[in-house]
């Protein structure tokens, strides 16, 4: 298990605050447990000496006042420290990139200023402030990125703002952390922090909004596929095959079926596999895939297949059937 990374300067400042709180807590806890154990050892019935008891007598009113006051002073310091770090969140820099985030049962829809759209994935450049403007289409969600140490509820009927400046490139998990119904634990995604050049490159290569693949991605989530099949191109999700095979790189790969027969996963294979899932050799997944025959129409299937093809970026998409 790796320790949670700090993907921004703010994250480091929060960790310092948490460390401060932890040290104070451990000191108090040590004091309480220490006094408890000492008292028990020293004043155990039958073991107590008159001398020990006599020594126990110096308590007075001032003692109570003094330590109460000390506690209050420490608390006030903590309060100021934590508040000052919180207020920052209400003051986004004017030059921040504005990205829209829409929560919907159970996916995150992301819209960039250039018109690019994504689902359950957020790409940002390192070193530039980014401001998320968030709203919900249905219930309350919560957009949370632990690596940045930030989160905020996403409410229907109004915008919420959340801003950050990521300083470390890489992929980090994002979660919905406000319980939002059946698919709550599937409403996760990936924040990818790219350096400036990669970001520009990425912006140019996102599938345009309204494309067949884009439609397929929405279907992939809406029909429940994303509940079991990993589809994020980036770590840490890509290799997760505990529930079902990962869709990343599936298109164009060789699949060995239960009867030992090997087959290349082309568009026709994907199309048929969605309708009736084939048994793979030696596979043991936590879930069994239902048939989507009669659930998804041909247009839907085409969109899904188009989307799955984008998950094997090295291969050119073919025209399938």
């Amino acid at each position: 298990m790796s320790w949670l990374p700090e993907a921004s300067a703010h994250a480091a400042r929060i960790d310092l605050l948490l460390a401060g709180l932890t040290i104070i807590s451990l000191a108090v806890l040590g004091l309480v447990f220490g006094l408890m154990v000492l008292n028990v050892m020293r004043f155990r019935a039958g073991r107590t000496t008159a001398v020990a008891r006599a020594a126990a007598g110096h308590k007075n009113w001032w003692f109570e006042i003094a330590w109460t006051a000390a506690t209050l002073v420490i608390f006030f310091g903590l309060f100021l420290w934590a508040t000052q770090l919180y207020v920052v969140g209400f003051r986004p820099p004017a030059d921040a990139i504005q990205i829209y985030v829409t929560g919907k049962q159970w996916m995150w829809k992301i819209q960039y200023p250039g018109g690019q759209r994504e689902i359950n994935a957020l790409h940002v450049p390192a070193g530039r402030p980014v401001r998320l403007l968030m709203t919900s289409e249905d219930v309350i969600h919560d957009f949370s990125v632990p690596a940045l140490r930030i989160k905020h509820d996403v409410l229907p009927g109004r915008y919420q703002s959340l801003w950050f400046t990521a300083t470390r490139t890489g992929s980090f998990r994002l979660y919905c952390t406000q319980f939002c119904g059946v698919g709550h634990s599937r409403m996760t995604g990936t924040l990818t922090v790219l350096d400036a050049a990669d970001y520009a490159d990425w912006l140019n290569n996102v599938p345009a909004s309204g494309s067949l693949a884009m439609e397929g991605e929405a279907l992939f989530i809406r029909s429940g596929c994303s509940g079991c099949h990993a589809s994020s191109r980036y770590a840490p999700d890509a290799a997760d095959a505990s529930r079902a095979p990962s869709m990343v790189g599936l298109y164009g790969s060789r699949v060995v079926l239960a009867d030992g027969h090997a087959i290349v996963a082309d568009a026709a294979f994907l199309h048929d596999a969605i309708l009736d899932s084939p048994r793979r050799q030696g596979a043991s997944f936590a879930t069994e895939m239902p048939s989507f025959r009669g659930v998804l129409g041909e247009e839907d299937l085409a969109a899904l297949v188009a989307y799955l093809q984008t998950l094997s970026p090295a291969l050119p998409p073919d025209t399938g059937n």
Partner: protein
Amino acid sequence: MSASYLWQDGTLRSWLLTRDHKRIALLYLGSITAFFALGGIGAALIRLQLLEPAGTILSDATYNRVFTMHGVVMVWLFLVPSIPVTLGNFLVPLMLGARDLAFPRLNLVSWYLFVASGLLVLYGLFRGGLETGWTFYTPLSSDYSEGRVLPVVLGIFLNGFSSIATGVNFIVSIHQLRAPGMTWYRLPLMLWALYATSIIFVLATPVLGITLLLLAFERLFRVGVFDPTLGGDPLLFQQMFWFYSHPAVYIMILPGMGVVSEIVSTFCRKPVFGYRFVAWSSVSIAAIGFIVWGHHMFVAGESLYSAIVFSMFSFFVSVPSAIKVFNWLGTMHGGSIRLDAPMLYALGFIGLFTVGGLTGLFLASLAADVHLTQTYFVVAHFHYIMVGGMVSAYFGGLHYWWPKITGRMYPEIWGRLAAALIFFGFNLTFFPQFILGFEGMPRRYATYPAQFQVLNVLSSAGAGILAVAYVMPLVYFTWSLFRGARAPDNPWGATGLEWRTSSPPPVENFAETPVVTTDAYDYGDMDARTGVADAGGRHHV
């Protein structure tokens, strides 16, 4: 002196129509034990499910129903009533030196309301289920939930009346029914704690009632005052919900603090250090506890001013709690400490409550809360308060007063073993969750990324131990009813009025109305030897 309250009239009818506070306490004890078991089964299912990242036994939909069931049952059908309606009902008149509570009939009505509400809630939870979590946030609960919101919400509404009835009864009894000589500063600290609890019962519960009524209205007619499509504000629901539900935390913990004060004093054979501080800290917790609820909403979209104000108040509320902890430690200092089972539970309470309180500071600190809220850190924090603290105190209290309630001693060795096991199992279950929370694992997830598995497995292992430890008292308490040694009137050599009557007490509690001439916890002979401690105790304030 007439026969004990247990056997005076053994018919079922006499139990179901009883107005004797002691019998009502036992009726409550039976009901909440059943609910505790039910909630515990929910907890076991949750921990089983989370053994594997992909989940093991439950579908997402079922998992959501199970954790909602666990939350609703534990909060309203076990934790909130727990100590007040069992130990409180049994002890308030005994500690006051009274024959019964002020309104005996109302007391019985409150039990029937409780049972009715419990059945209604269970009907909703098991015929269709509910998947909103115990917090019922709108618009999920009002427009989007497929669960049985209405029966559960109406059940909790009824439950509120039961709480209010108990609160009214306690407050009025403590004002009106004190035995001659029982001044306010001679009251056992348990009664101060229950008085403070009752304030919350009476003044917070109705706000929950109206909030849930508004929710039910919105659910029924699909339009209502929190509906965002009408420009309604879902945050207003949260404000009103937490106006009750945060003080409800103090409903759960204050009686536990009362129990611990009694136990610590008895097993140290010393008056509680700083009696008046401890007494008033109960009342101030109840009062300040009403003005901190907004700290549940730091990331919910509440205004900056509001967040700052509530954060500051939240720091304040920890002061009276700290006063209690240090005064208990002060009580132990220079005492003559015996480590019987109740004392072990009390020590466990002090330790675990301290952890819970300190982690509360993390959540009161605005910026830290942003990272930690809605994660397993919060889950661990409130379980330290409610299970580590409150349930420990409840078990401690049951062991302490068991001889008085039943007239039988429980087996001491088993009692100590269970106490130790609960402490160990509890920490193993919930400590890893603090780390999980810091790492960012969100709460209420049926499945989770594989990186969190190790800590989850540790937590589930702890839960297994905890389950065994909780079943043990059920077994040996039952055994003791038939085979336990007969209890003397005052097995612990304690000072309260309840120990001056027989074990179990007669129907009318006291053969003669007791007259109080000394302070609570007046372990006179010992104080004569130590001298200073007693004088110190008296001159506080």
